[in-house]
């Protein structure tokens, strides 16, 4: 197994460092399917936080995990998007291609929701080629419209509600990212596969 390090946070929490988000999602999915007795299991960019459990119980469980021991691949969710975002040209400039190329690449990528954070329903989607990254805006917008489909670093994300934000906006969707009344309140929980479909 690669470098997996357990960092103690408190008597009842620890961070497992894995090095990348996909491994983190895999461990979190496996731990959740095992029914580990933690209050929260929170995958993130390269770690999994186990909160509300003795760190030594986490260490013991980890001995039985390998990155192959994953949970089932998630369902595919199709997200309709209108590619009319204000930052499309900036993305095209970073990627040294045309706006149409950006749209084609984005719409043909199978993304995977790797982890959530920042707001209920906000998922960090991985799947773009590693040479297709973009920086954040130098000055974040005070308001990004709800449903904005945006890029930052190698991630794609959709803003579930209006909020300040520095990601580059390439389009909008009316897909309901978050509905507390729904049985699964998040549309794109970790593990979900996502395909964007251009609407006309």
């Amino acid at each position, binding site marked *: 197994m690669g470098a997996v390090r357990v*960092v*103690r*946070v*408190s008597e009842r*929490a*620890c*961070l497992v460092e894995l090095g990348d988000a996909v491994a983190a999602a895999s461990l*979190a999915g496996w731990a959740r399917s095992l029914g580990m007795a933690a*209050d*929260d*299991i*929170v*995958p*993130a*960019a*390269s*770690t*999994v*936080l186990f*909160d*509300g459990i003795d760190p030594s119980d986490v260490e013991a469980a980890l001995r039985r995990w390998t990155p192959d021991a994953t949970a089932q691949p998630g369902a595919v969710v199709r997200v309709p998007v209108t590619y009319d975002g204000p930052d499309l040209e900036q993305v095209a400039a970073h990627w040294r291609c045309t706006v149409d190329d950006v749209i084609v690449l984005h719409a043909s990528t199978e993304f995977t929701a790797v*982890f*959530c*954070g*920042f*707001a*209920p*329903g*906000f998922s960090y989607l991985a799947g773009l080629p590693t040479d297709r990254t973009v920086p954040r805006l130098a000055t974040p917008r005070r308001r990004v419209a709800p449903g904005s489909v945006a890029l930052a670093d190698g991630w794609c994300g959709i803003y579930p*509600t209006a909020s300040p934000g520095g990601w580059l906006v390439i389009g909008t969707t009316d897909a309901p990212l978050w509905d*507390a009344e729904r049985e699964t*309140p*998040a549309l794109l*929980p*970790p593990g979900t596969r996502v395909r964007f479909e251009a609407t006309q």
Partner: protein
Amino acid sequence: MSIEVLDPGPLSTLQDLGRPGWAHLGVARAGALDRGAAALARRLVGGAIDDAVVETTLGGIVLRTRRAVTLAVTGAPCEVHADGHGLGTGTPVTVPADTVVTVGPARTGVRSYVAFAGGIDVAPVLGSRSTDTLAWVGPSRLAAGQVLIIGAAGQWPEPPAAVVVRRREPVLRLRPGPRIDWLAPGAWAALDRATYAVAPDSDRIGLRLDGPPVERRAGELPSEGMVLGAVQLPPSGQPVVFLADHPPTGGYPVVAVVEDADLDLCAQLRPGDQVVLRTA
């Protein structure tokens, strides 16, 4: 229909034990910020452990009863009146129907708690009646004209005859955090007995501290899961103690974690209050 909100004050919300278990979907745990005061209020009215209570912020709340209710006020010391007659705090009181109950501004501290015998009947969201002020998951903040339904008081054990609430010293005990290695040499030792002031933008999300900048290495950390009580250290060097509505993930290093028993104190510290940090 039992209680009408006449004036919610600056910020009044319903809080219970919160909703841990949803952090992986980006949902803050919420829950009463001063857990001890909320639990005491519940006990005084013979409530269930997961009953919702009203949490006020600095300015109190004014309510009108539509039927007789038994209530108790705890937390930040304040004056409580029913139609102008003074009521005690820290004790259950039965108030008749059609009475205006005024929970006054906090004399010291920040947050008072009002519990009702029978609990507050509002639809839970993701298993809890708490409101998180980060993403506003949960019942809306209380508004003038809103009516709260109070449940029927059951046959619960007698509440305690007397309550003693000890004054807490404004000391926050810190344990080493997962990213303590981000501190500059000597910075951890410098935190011990250091005095900080509570910044004006402190809220349910975090207690922000103004004081001697805590020295740390430069750079950014990939976002990672955060715990209650985490002490985040932004590049400014001004620490933030994460409270109930903290975001589930964050990108500033957590150099310390506040002892859980000291978090209730954080709920009652006002802007300008001084607090001493201890690492030993």
